């Protein structure tokens, strides 16, 4: 502070500091999160439209604000709409959210700081931004992920409110093809993953087989969690050879 000109000069030639990197992660995360948030908005509208006749006007919006997990909310809503009780609705939702357990374990090594800080970063996990924040070889950028999730949170809650109060004007979400948004979105993320190595393609194919075989016989949520077991192929001795370093993928856009 005493010699600002010297400080300025040195800041121009030195490496970026940790604070600079954090700011850059937050900025690029926010930008990467916007297309995700647009899809999330449309899905939120669908949720609001479908939830209103079952849950009223306030409950769906509160649910989106404090649960903030699309597939789990749709599953719990389906149970309630069919006349099921709270235990069945909670079980359906939690089963779908159990995938955040392996995802959180994957995220763990990249998180620094105390337990509360780590738990807080865990709360910002959603499928799409978790995948976007994946830097390969088990590394994640947690600041990027949190920033990328922020627009989705805002638009998920806003979309739910829009669906609840203006749903009749929009008609059925299916008619607009909105239910095709997320499978297509996860496909774009999957394509990025498979370019990391041959092994990822094998794992994806096995996961597809597991999920499709289990889907007709098990409750929603089980096929996706069971499919994560395909990653255990990584334990095979040959896996070390197939898993070659590949440069980071470019940001979407």
């Amino acid at each position: 502070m005493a010699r600002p000109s010297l400080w300025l000069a040195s800041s121009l030639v030195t490496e970026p500091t940790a604070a600079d990197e954090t700011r850059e992660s937050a900025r690029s995360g926010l930008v990467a999160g916007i297309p995700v948030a647009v899809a999330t908005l449309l899905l939120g509208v669908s949720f609001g439209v479908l939830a209103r006749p079952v849950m009223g006007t306030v409950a769906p919006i509160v649910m989106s604000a404090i649960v903030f997990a699309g597939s789990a909310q749709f599953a719990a809503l389906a149970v309630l709409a069919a006349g099921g009780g709270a235990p069945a609705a909670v079980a359906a939702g939690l089963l779908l959210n159990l995938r955040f357990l392996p995802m959180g374990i994957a995220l763990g090594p990249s998180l620094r700081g105390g337990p509360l800080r780590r738990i807080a970063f865990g709360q910002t996990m959603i499928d799409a931004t978790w995948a976007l924040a994946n830097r390969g070889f088990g590394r994640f950028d947690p600041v990027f992920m949190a920033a990328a999730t922020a627009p989705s949170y805002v638009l998920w809650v806003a979309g739910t409110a829009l669906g609840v109060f203006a749903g009749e004007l929009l008609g059925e979400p299916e008619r607009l093809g909105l239910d095709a948004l997320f499978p297509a979105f996860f496909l774009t993320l999957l394509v990025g993953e498979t370019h990391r190595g041959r092994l990822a393609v094998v794992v994806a194919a096995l996961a597809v087989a597991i999920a499709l075989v289990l889907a007709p016989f098990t409750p929603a949520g089980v096929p996706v969690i069971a499919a994560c077991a395909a990653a255990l192929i990584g334990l095979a001795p040959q896996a070390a050879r197939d898993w070659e370093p590949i440069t980071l993928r470019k940001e979407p856009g």
Partner: protein
Amino acid sequence: MSATWTTILVLAAGTAVIKGAGPLLVGGRSLGRTTTRVIALIAPALLAALVVTQAFTDSDGSLTIDARAAGLAAAAGVLAVRREAMVRAVVVAALAAALVRAL
């Protein structure tokens, strides 16, 4: 308390616990090479399973091919041409599914 509010509160609490568990248990520690490889492979496994369960299953879990499959195929076509065309692929998927339903 009504079933709706019980569901909302318990689901919110349960979800927070699940999301916090991994970061709490393995935070900051670096894991071995093999463990890291398995963990890195969870991403393609999870994404592949999400794609097929969301595109090809009904609400009761039975396998089905409907307008969503057309949307997914259209997205795959866009990605085959340009791998980075994320937004375009998603928009084309919704348009294709809507078109198939309108026919």
